[in-house]
């Protein structure tokens, strides 16, 4: 497979209905994250948050090709992974607000969301944790023809998990797709400063087919993901995708992103995956309005939702 430079949205947009659905999911993530940011500033979201704004095309493109037997492991920047999989936005927002109606009852919070019904085996607060979880998932899914996807950032490739798990997956030809979201920074530090060699080359030394793609082109991501998933499903082993993308916000709430080079954010804004999709689709007003209405209702519901009551009898172990 060859390296693809970041470029305009691919010409081969799918039919309008599907295109609108991909766009809708990306917009939902963007507006969800804007909302989380606002609610954080108002003190309604606790701890910290790691927003996905700017990277939407990666999760949405990849998750659009997954089937019911497939599973996904996301990162601490995982709201986008969850929403792309179809996790209920209301339940996710409620979780971030620590409400009883959250997808994990308020027990998990932003960095650790789990929703097995929607095939999300977890979001992982440890850099590289998603790689391990997905590798194990692939071991189990091999029996039923499912594929496991790990999302992780460029920082994760310097963790032992990356090397050890990709080797493990390749040795046993596991149906795993490893998606590195290279947003140029590991937390506050440019990846080139702390990463030796090319990211993709590391997978290639393990004899894992790999490609570098434009992560802001949702259809390009979808095409690459479909190819990788089909290959994994056919028993040909793991694939690696490096998706070049950019987060429009800092690493976390405490990070204003001052380390960015002048003009860098602006140049990436011009490659905003949402705008590119909208330009390709044309009129999106109906979807735009529907998402705005959904968000407004979600905020109202979430703020009205009850906090969980501390359970003095909460169980340490599962029974039986």
């Amino acid at each position, binding site marked *: 497979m060859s390296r693809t430079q970041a470029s305009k949205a691919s010409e081969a947009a799918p039919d309008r209905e599907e295109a609108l659905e991909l766009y809708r999911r990306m917009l939902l993530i963007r507006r969800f994250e804007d909302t989380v940011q606002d609610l954080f500033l108002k003190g309604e979201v606790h701890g910290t948050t790691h927003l996905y704004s700017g990277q939407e095309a990666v999760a949405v493109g990849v998750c659009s090709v997954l089937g019911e037997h497939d599973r996904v492991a996301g990162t601490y920047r995982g709201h986008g992974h969850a929403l792309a999989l179809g996790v209920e936005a209301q339940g996710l927002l409620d979780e971030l607000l620590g409400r009883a109606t959250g997808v994990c009852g308020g027990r998990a919070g932003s960095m650790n969301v789990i929703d097995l019904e929607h095939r999300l085996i977890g979001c992982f607060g440890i850099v590289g944790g998603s790689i391990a*979880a997905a590798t194990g*998932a692939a071991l189990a899914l091999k029996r039923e023809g499912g594929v496991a996807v790990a999302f992780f950032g460029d920082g994760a490739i310097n963790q*032992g*998990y990356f090397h050890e798990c990709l080797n*493990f997956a390749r040795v046993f030809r596991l149906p795993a797709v490893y998606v590195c979201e290279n947003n140029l920074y590991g937390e506050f530090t440019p990846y080139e400063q702390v990463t030796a060699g090319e990211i993709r080359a590391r997978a290639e030394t393990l004899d894992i087919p790999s490609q570098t793609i434009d992560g802001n082109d949702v259809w390009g991501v979808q095409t690459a993901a479909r190819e990788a998933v089909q290959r994994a499903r056919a028993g040909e082993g793991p694939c690696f995708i490096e998706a070049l993308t950019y987060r429009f916000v800092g690493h976390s709430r405490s990070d204003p992103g001052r380390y960015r080079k002048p003009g860098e954010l602006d140049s990436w804004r011009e490659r905003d995956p949402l705008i590119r999709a909208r330009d390709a689709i044309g009129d999106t007003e109906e979807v735009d309005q529907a998402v705005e209405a959904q968000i407004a209702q979600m905020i109202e519901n979430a703020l009205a939702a009850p906090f969980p009551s501390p359970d003095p009898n909460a169980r340490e172990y599962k029974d039986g």
Partner: protein
Amino acid sequence: MEFRVAIRDALAEELERDERVVVFGEDVAAAGGVFVTTPGLLERFGPDRVFDTPISELALAGAAFGSAVCGLRPVIEIMFGDFLPLVMDSLVNQASKYWYISNEQASVPLVVRSAVGAGGRFGAIHSQSPVTWFHAVPGLKLVAPSTPADAKALLKAAVRDDNPVLFLEHKRLYSMKEDVGGGRSEAGELGSAAVRRDGSDVTLVSVMKGVHDCLAAAELLAEDGIDAEVIDLRTLRPLDRAAIAESLAKTNRLAAVEEGPRTGGWAGEVLAVAAEESLDDVDDLWRITTPEHPIPYSPSLEDAFLPGAEAIAESVRARLGFAVTARD
């Protein structure tokens, strides 16, 4: 039956009973395990169920965690307990917390088997009993059997348990023999202690090889007219608190014998439970542990380092006010 064969039989019976059970680790399949616990399983169950992995504990534990979330019931072997820090993220941060933070969507039915313990001249980093590293983790069960029969029954229970279990096997017990009866055995019960010797003067509490040291110490103490009760906790988490309380009600004195450093050890937890729940029954509580330095290599140093039967007996005599002269 040897302890190591009991482990093998438990795995074989569970592999046969439930096709979701898989066994993997370094050198466990073709070679049969460095402690010869798993020969024959590969031949019997095939490479999809029993397989060798890279020397890659992060991947091993990650694969165990992820596959357990997705429907398998993996049993992995981490050859020496000293290597367990390499599995801590998957085991502690992910598997043990999954049931609770997922709001009880699922638990993670995996077993990590690992060989622990000193006395084999393996030096400081192949001889530890790293119970304490994992002791403070809600959601993780800790099993530490002392006999072949228990090893078989408790390993079967661990495989069937829906929660993550760390199953510790003491290196000095692998060759121990015991009649465990013919054929298949029932699964045991995790969290249930056993009274290995009835006594009325003092309770000795331990696990794994320590139980045998306590039994030998009890025989020495009997010569002095001290009647020691020996409790085998079998599972360190959950802890059989009732068994501790019942024994204390009889003996009023308790020594927890731990092969491990005193600071932060599980023996301290046993004493805390005794103090919290049985204070009215307590005349004395203390710990017999290893010194606060790494495990030495030289035989003379290692032997002196470990709390053997003589040391346990001597500690009990001293604590009960039996001066050496009392033996005259």
